[in-house]
């Protein structure tokens, strides 16, 4: 069993309180960083660790930190993005719920590294219990002298605030989050300028996911090089995966990146296989916005190599035969699930969550939703498939923020891989409302690729 870095003490009674957390070695990284390291040394450690952003895009965290502009006399901010609302992803909520001090500890070290005197945790509005938990944890940390003025006698001051959002998926996009934090309508900003140059109130700002910030704690405790030993290739360290859908043991698991997907899906340590003895049909590997893959393409890459849970391996084959690790929202579909219905459901979500600022996303998501709704309820046409692909192509890449891409990818990939199921839905409309297409050939072994020469 691999070592857990984030969730090591998750089962300890009372780990959500400061005293127990401290006894288990908590806040050691704060002591280490503030007493023995310079801010630049902390940034260097994070760079060495190869940590990549855990929120979905996978951008190297250390690199992001080093882009932060540092003009004289201008405040800098660290904002933690806890607006986790991607369907299928619930790892940040789990972390904040059970081990809030880990996030606080990470925030203190990261703020120190960036020279931020005020930091914010922007939490999605629906997570009211977690907001209270965090506020309690902050009060405890402040009591113990880990927040406020002159932390541990190092002369470093930090105020940490929790800000509830109002429950919008779009506020998980970093610039929309900053707008919302400033008290405005949560519309994404047009980039450039990037937040590292002009973010919160026009000041240089870093926005990081909850898990990225929590991962800074083991990186400082054990050193960036030690952390980089875990994982495979450029995917270093551990990752929280929230497994859901038709798996036997849904929940949040911490895995070493590079774990074979087959092991993750079928070993009893993790998902434990598909529930009720059914067979796997399809998988969404990283939250609803990444491309969906049929079982055979998910377990093996197009070259018949086993797929690993890593940024590179999941993306193997690009969008033709690959997907993305995304935010780690792992959703498995068994043979009784309807891909058309699922695609419609995802599209309905993006239609509802589009901010309405730029035209392709505002109008296109609604259009796709209506076409898929019609198809699901038995009034589809065969020409709708090409229409959907075309509309998704017109949205993708032409919008202000990645929500347009996120809305387009599930539709495009579902039609790419499950076209016959969509066609069956149209041609056998009356049958399609009473039964599902079933597994069909989606789990068949991949044919050997013929290569020229």
């Amino acid at each position, binding site marked *: 069993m691999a070592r857990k870095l984030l969730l090591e003490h998750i089962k300890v009674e009372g780990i959500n309180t400061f005293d127990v957390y401290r006894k288990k070695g908590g806040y050691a990284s704060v002591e280490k960083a503030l007493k023995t390291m310079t801010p630049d040394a902390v940034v260097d450690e994070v760079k060495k660790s190869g940590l990549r952003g855990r929120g979905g895009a996978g951008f190297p965290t250390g690199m992001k930190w080093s882009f932060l502009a540092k003009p004289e006399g201008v405040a800098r901010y660290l904002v933690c993005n806890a607006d986790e609302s991607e369907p299928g992803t619930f790892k940040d909520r789990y972390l904040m719920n059970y081990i809030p001090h880990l996030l606080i500890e990470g925030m203190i070290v990261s703020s120190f590294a960036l020279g931020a005197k005020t930091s914010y945790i922007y939490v999605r509005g629906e997570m009211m219990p977690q907001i209270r938990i965090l506020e309690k944890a902050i009060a405890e940390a402040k009591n113990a002298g880990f927040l406020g003025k002159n932390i541990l006698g190092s002369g470093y001051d930090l105020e940490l605030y929790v800000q509830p959002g109002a429950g*919008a998926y*779009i506020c998980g996009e970093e610039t929309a989050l900053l707008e919302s934090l400033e008290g405005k*309508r949560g519309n994404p900003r*047009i980039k450039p300028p990037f937040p590292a140059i002009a973010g919160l109130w026009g000041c240089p700002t870093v926005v990081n996911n909850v898990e990225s910030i929590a991962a800074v704690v083991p990186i400082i405790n054990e050193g960036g090089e030690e952390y980089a030993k875990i994982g495979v290739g450029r995917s270093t360290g551990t990752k929280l995966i929230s497994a859901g859908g038709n798996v036997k043991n849904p929940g949040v698991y911490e895995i070493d990146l590079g774990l074979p997907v087959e092991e993750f899906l079928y070993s009893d340590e993790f998902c434990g296989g598909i529930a009720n003895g059914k067979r796997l049909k399809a998988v969404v590997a990283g939250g609803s916005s990444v491309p969906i893959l049929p079982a055979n393409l998910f377990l093996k890459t197009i070259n018949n190599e086993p797929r690993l849970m890593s940024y590179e391996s999941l993306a193997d084959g690009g969008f033709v035969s690959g997907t993305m690790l995304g935010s780690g929202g792992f959703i498995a579909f068994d043979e009784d699930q309807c891909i058309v219905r699922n695609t419609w459901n995802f599209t309905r979500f993006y*239609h*509802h*969550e*589009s*901010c*309405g*600022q*730029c*035209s*392709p996303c*505002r*109008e*296109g*998501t*609604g*259009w796709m939703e*209506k076409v898929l709704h019609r198809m699901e309820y038995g009034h589809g046409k065969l020409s709708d498939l090409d*229409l959907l692909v*075309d*509309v998704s*192509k*017109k949205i993708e*890449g*032409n*919008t*202000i923020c990645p929500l347009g891409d996120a809305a387009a990818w599930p539709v495009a990939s579902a039609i790419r891989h499950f076209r016959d199921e969509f066609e069956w839905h149209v041609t056998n409309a009356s049958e399609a409302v009473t039964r599902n297409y079933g597994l069909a050939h989606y789990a068949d072994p991949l044919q050997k690729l013929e290569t020229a020469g």
Partner: protein
Amino acid sequence: MKVTIDGIAVEVEPGTTILNAARQIGGDIVPPAMCYYSKLKDSGGKCRTCLVKVSKGSEKDPRPMPKLVASCRTTVMDGMEVQNITSPEVIEARKGIVEMLLINHPLDCPICDQAGECDLQNLGFEHGAVKTRYEFDRRTFEKIDIGDKIQLHMTRCILCYRCVFTADQITNYRYHGILGRGDHSEISTYIQHAVDNDFSGNVIDVCPVGALTDKTFRFKNRVWFTKPVDAHRDCDHPGCNGKVTLWYKGEEVLRVTARKDQYGEVEEYICNTCRFDKKKTADWVIEGPRHISDKSVISSNHYDFIPLPVVKTNLVLQEANKEQFERDTRL
């Protein structure tokens, strides 16, 4: 800085956007813009009709940009190469955007006051498809009066945010804004609060479609039957210099608007007194006929051979009218 757009090079100031560089060249290579308004800070980037392809980033970093960029919000770099109408990718994307803008637009041009001077109509004519692929009900809203002089017909709105920026930047208080989100978001006032401000009428001029219309002009006439004439008056409002365009039908001034340039942008904002209350020729000093592009539908009926009553007494207008008449009869 040197930038090349569709093979035409131009020297521009640092900080100029691609769109403004293209406007300096002029002609067919200027990307259309529905939401960008050069006189409004922070406008643009939303409608995505001005997307262009940057095939070479700059002299220093010649890599192309990975996605199409909004030309109204992207500043030029030295040696940048941009493709607009020479890129099939851009044409395809723009066609898609125009289709998206039109799927929820009512297409009620025959009864819309904006027809003839509508940016969306022009855009659809130039870039749109013949037939829509959208087969569902369009989004509709009730018409609401915002203030006693302005009517909002949200059904026609394309959410360009221009009126929001106008209220923010040239009036002293903004009463209206965007409510809701996604394709059901709407421009509205908070609980139908009246928009009442000396400069509120400018939202009518900046609106690219017929969503915000002048209640004193609604259904009075089609714009192509009216004759635009530049005029000015001594306006005592400190923020207004009284330079306007009067739109005549016969002897009557049907409406007063700010003067608009070739991209449909106002030259200078005018106050509500000039716009709504001064509708007599006697209030104004006539300067001459407003030049309207030959391509615009407004010029199709421009000057008739029976001189306007106003023209009879004004030498400048008579002269211009003669030229116009000669050109029309020659065609």
